[in-house]
């Protein structure tokens, strides 16, 4: 029997399961789903993991500002970080700058912050996107704010682990440098994911599994201690992202 769950709960659960106990998870601004995932990992199988959440008092042990945080990232001290973009393309590049021409944009976006360094220097970067449409998954981003695939002359410690959306999990095929479909969430189909992706999407290693939904135990943690923590950081998100009591 599968209990009712929200897309946010599913996405957070898939991310949380990746974390091994003791790994360091860093979360940037405007990242409620990754924050939920990091806290769920801590509350379940990774109690010894360090979790840093930008913008939160409880989860921010730094004393020297964001400089200290970015220097630590640049030293390769983070196992996980989370990025997103208005556009994500076939090669896993993200766009946080402009839609349209950079000098005469249709939309001016907030900018890249540290993403052009973090994508290279954090061991495992997870891209998360709260919509999955042909507008957000494009053949080529209008502006490469940060890239998953770079020349070998550049020192790169890590990179793209996977992409998660409300419909599916995508991974990078290292040989072709292109994203492929790894798994499809329950209630969605391969056809639907492909229709909503603006580039050709092969199945990773020839088949796409169904994403494993949250278990009753995971949902209980999410709606109990995890929700309490997340409410302090993202009150509006916490109100809508967590399902009700498990009946």
């Amino acid at each position: 029997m599968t209990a009712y769950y929200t897309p946010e709960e599913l996405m957070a659960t898939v991310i949380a399961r990746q974390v091994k106990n003791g790994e360091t998870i860093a979360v940037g601004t405007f990242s409620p789903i990754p924050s939920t995932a990091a806290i769920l990992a801590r509350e379940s199988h990774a109690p010894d993991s360090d979790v840093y959440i930008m913008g939160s008092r409880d989860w921010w042990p730094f004393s020297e500002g964001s400089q200290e945080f970015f220097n630590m990232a640049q030293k390769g001290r983070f196992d996980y970080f989370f990025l997103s973009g208005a556009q994500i393309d076939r090669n896993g590049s993200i766009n946080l700058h402009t839609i349209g021409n950079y000098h005469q944009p249709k939309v001016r976006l907030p900018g890249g912050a540290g993403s052009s360094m973090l994508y290279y220097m954090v061991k495992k970067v997870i891209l998360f996107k709260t919509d999955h449409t042909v507008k957000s998954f494009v053949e080529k981003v209008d502006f490469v704010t940060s890239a998953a695939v770079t020349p070998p002359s550049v020192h790169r410690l890590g990179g793209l682990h996977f992409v998660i959306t409300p419909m599916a999990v995508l991974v990078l095929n290292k040989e072709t440098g292109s994203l492929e479909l790894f798994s499809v969430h329950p209630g969605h189909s391969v056809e639907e994911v492909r229709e909503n992706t603006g580039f050709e999407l092969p199945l990773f290693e020839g088949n796409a599994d169904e994403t494993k939904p949250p278990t009753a135990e995971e949902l209980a943690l999410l709606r109990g201690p995890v929700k309490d923590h997340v409410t302090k950081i993202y009150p509006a998100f916490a109100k809508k992202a967590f399902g009700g009591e498990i009946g």
Partner: protein
Amino acid sequence: MGLPFLPVRGVIGTDYTVVRPDFKTIKNPYGADEILVVPAVSPDVSLIHAFKADKFGNCIVNSSIDDALLARASQKVIVSAEEIVDTEELKTSQRGNFVSRIHVDAVVHMPRGAAPTSCGSYYSADIEVLKSYQAAAKDPQTFSSYVKEFCLRLRDGGDAA
């Protein structure tokens, strides 16, 4: 730091190098890789809002952002503060980073000086005002009335928001 540039990891292979010709790729003189260097940011003047300051310019600033770094990088620093306190009280203050008077040129007592954004434990962001800013910013006329209402009020003798 007084240096003309610093190396930064990453960035090579993104469009930053297209739109920022001042970001240069060099060979790492101590390794086999290529690395990006970026010019120093050296502000003429920084405006920093502190939690507490004394009359000499010593102050306590938010430790989660880079105000202390900004103060040290700038030629001139003007500190506004929620509270003006005795130097002794700064020494026992628990939250925030200490910035020495040696970096500070002027201090202004300015309660609610960070509004409508947040200021530590003093106040939260005023979402309604920020939303009205967002709406007003779409049009030059509504934008100037926002500026008049929320930014020029102090100059014109009104109270802070």
